[in-house]
């Protein structure tokens, strides 16, 4: 505790605040531009930070990371383009809200949820780092498989009322995720001999395709067929901010999503996109108005944004306490720590306690700065709704193309994105929900790798899923959710 006050003094030095703010602005821009991803932004900025003092350099990277995770929601809500994979869940309801003339409200919910989720995550990092890390280490292949299965049951939750099409979409998502190199033995699968397919489909091409490009196709079709009906209609007003009733609706959702996100962030290999979708599913399950999900639910935006930002602080738990990077960004941050002579791991807390304290303060300060910068930028962002669709969507398509090309330097990924655009358009026309497709796609590899690794370790015995308590609990919960969904579904059909 005696370390906190000097740490506050250090973090509050103008240089640190300035680089942190620069990092946040860069992050928000990168996050909001489709295709440009946050790991790439952090990797490119890493050499720059070598020339800064350790705290300033790391504070800048933290700013990019947090700003980027939030920034994805801005374009997801305003133009149906999730700037980052984690904002895919935000686009599901956020864009519907914009179409209904509630852009301003949706953006506020996203900002305040991001802040709340991020802040709770930072506090968890500061207060419970060691116990959470010990819990996260217990998550092995068997637990990953069971967690994945539990999360997959959310496809059922999200498909209520449209069960068959939802399950088809979910299964198709899992199928898409198997294309490319087999994650375990490196053999190519379903690539039809194309070298370009050996890397598999990129999640960013998939989400930009099924959201932005599909929307552009729908709009083009509507215009060409003079069916200026419901498709692509947008009210070009931003609407009002959040009312007290909106707060009462969203705050519990934010607070519930944050701990789930904290846990997911602490487990290496899961990440913010998974947290966003899982929290979206959970929120629908507990909502009083589940039918609004996908059609403009504030709760959906709150759950997704609180959930994905709640990962930002806790991904540092395994990094700082054990020296284990949980995802690409923390792997890059590990490099940044090492360059400055700070070796993450249990020893860091004793040898560099003053630095750890300053890092904690920097995490908190960056959350507050993000709220301030995001709030200042809000009136600017909402101007996007005033651009008419026929001007906006050509720009959006061009942005998506350049963004995806800039991050992958591959024409093939552009065709893939356009292909997914057609897929998304087709799904929309024939009433297939998009969320199950995305959930299947991100969870497929986790379930597959977990199952295969577990069975190799157990030498083919299924006992491993019963004898390990966390795995067993998750599988039982999964069965419970499935049964519950089945009961609700059959009741719904009868009535």
């Amino acid at each position, binding site marked *: 505790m005696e370390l906190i006050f000097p740490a506050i003094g250090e973090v509050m030095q103008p240089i640190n605040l300035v680089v942190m703010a620069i990092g946040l602005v860069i992050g928000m821009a990168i996050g909001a531009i489709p295709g440009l991803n946050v790991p790439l932004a952090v990797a490119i900025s*890493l050499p720059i930070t070598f020339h800064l003092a350790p705290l300033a350099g790391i504070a800048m990277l933290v700013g990019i990371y947090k700003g980027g995770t939030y920034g994805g929601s801005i374009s997801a809500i305003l133009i149906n383009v999730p700037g980052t994979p984690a904002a895919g869940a935000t686009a599901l309801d956020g864009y519907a809200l914009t179409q209904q003339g509630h852009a301003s409200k949706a953006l506020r919910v996203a900002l305040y949820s991001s802040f709340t989720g991020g802040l709770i995550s930072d506090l968890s990092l500061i207060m419970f780092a060691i116990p959470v890390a010990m819990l996260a280490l217990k998550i092995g292949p068997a637990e990953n498989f069971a967690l994945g299965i539990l999360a997959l049951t959310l496809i059922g939750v999200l498909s209520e009322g449209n069960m068959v099409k939802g399950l088809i979409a979910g299964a198709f998502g899992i199928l898409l995720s198997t294309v490319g190199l087999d*994650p375990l*033995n490196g053999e190519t699968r379903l690539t039809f001999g194309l070298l370009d397919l050996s890397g598999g489909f990129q999640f960013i091409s998939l989400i930009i395709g099924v959201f932005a490009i599909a929307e552009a196709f729908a709009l083009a079709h509507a215009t060409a067929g003079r069916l200026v009906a419901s498709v692509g209609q947008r009210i070009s007003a931003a609407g009002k901010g959040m009312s007290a009733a909106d707060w009462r609706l969203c705050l519990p959702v934010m607070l519930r999503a944050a701990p789930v996100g904290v846990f997911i962030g602490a487990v290496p290999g899961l990440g913010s996109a998974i947290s966003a979708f899982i929290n979206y599913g959970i929120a629908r399950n507990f909502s009083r108005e589940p039918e609004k999900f996908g059609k403009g639910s504030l709760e959906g935006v709150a759950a997704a944004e609180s959930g994905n930002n709640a990962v930002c602080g806790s991904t540092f738990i395994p990094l700082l306490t054990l020296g*284990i990077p949980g995802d690409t960004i923390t792997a890059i941050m590990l*490099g940044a720590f090492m360059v*400055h002579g700070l070796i993450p*791991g249990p020893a860091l807390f004793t040898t560099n306690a003053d630095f750890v304290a300053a890092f904690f303060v920097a995490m908190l300060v960056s959350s507050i700065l993000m709220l301030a910068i995001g709030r200042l930028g809000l009136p600017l962002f909402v101007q996007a709704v005033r651009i008419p669709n026929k001007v906006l969507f050509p720009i959006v398509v061009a942005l998506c193309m350049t963004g995806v090309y800039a991050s*992958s330097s591959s024409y093939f990924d552009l065709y893939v994105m356009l292909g997914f655009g057609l897929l998304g358009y087709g799904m929309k026309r024939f009433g297939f929900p998009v969320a199950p497709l995305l959930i299947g796609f991100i969870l497929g590899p986790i379930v597959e790798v977990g199952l295969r690794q577990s069975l190799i370790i157990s030498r083919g015995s299924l006992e491993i899923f019963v004898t390990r308590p966390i795995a067993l609990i998750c599988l039982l919960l999964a069965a419970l959710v499935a049964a519950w969904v089945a009961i609700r579904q059959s009741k719904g059909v009868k009535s």
Partner: protein
Amino acid sequence: MKTTRRILIGALLALPLATHAFTASAQQYPAKPITFIVPWPAGGTTDIIGRLLGEAMSKELGQPVAVVNRVGGGGAVGTKAAFDAPKDGYTVLVTTSGNHVLTPIKGNVGYQPDDFIGIGQISSRTLILATKSDRWKSARELIADAKANPGKFTFGAVPNVLPFLVASGFARAAEIKLTHVPQTGGAPGVTGVLGGHLDLVPESLESVQQHLKSGAMRGLVVFNEARDPAAPDVPTAKELGFDVVGNPWTGLAVAKGTPEPIVARLRDVMAKVAKDPAFVATVERSGASVEYLDGPAFTALFSRDFEKFKAASQ
């Protein structure tokens, strides 16, 4: 008047051609920005080394260096892109033993190791077989225990990468049976050992060094010709009587057919950067270490390692 305008337009149109003729000459090299292709994801060891080299070399060359990640197919996508680019020295491959040698062993990817000329090796890493510190105290203990319990103990590694090859080579040489649990990357294997889900992990020394220092993990054997000064207590496989050696390397290469003077210029600049103490210090702080080899010596590794690991992977 009309003729003057025509001549003027003609001259303007010819201008790009003239500059093109100039850029083609090696004396003018580099006349435009250079691209470094990294066939591995942003933020990994190769990417960081590539970016540091790019930054340092761009100062010497007087042109910006753009680092581009072309990821996929075990590094094949980026390597093939560097091979297919114009052979004019403006596309340089940041290459590793993985994409350069091991990926072509696995199947036809459209290039062979010898399709490239080495500019120089920047680093070579030590591989170590590590375990949780409350398990075996030495490689001898592991071997005795594994002989008594064939197939009981697991090691986590990405299939067919160098750490996998040395670990399975070690098991074969020591006549023990270890169960391979395929991993999706190096870091998950280390996490698996720390979490008690795996018994052993073969990894680069720098990625487990902090766990060795903190006492969470123990190194049993390294796969070098001689002991690594950074882990002086860990014996080499050779000392234990097993001839298993493998070092993953990283360096720069250009496609064969690049003009000789351009290759020479790149080699000179890289040599200068690699010997610059400030550059060496920056790389070392990022957790890697500089092990410079000049162009010809590095090029010689391509076919040597191809033959060596082709034999080992069969």
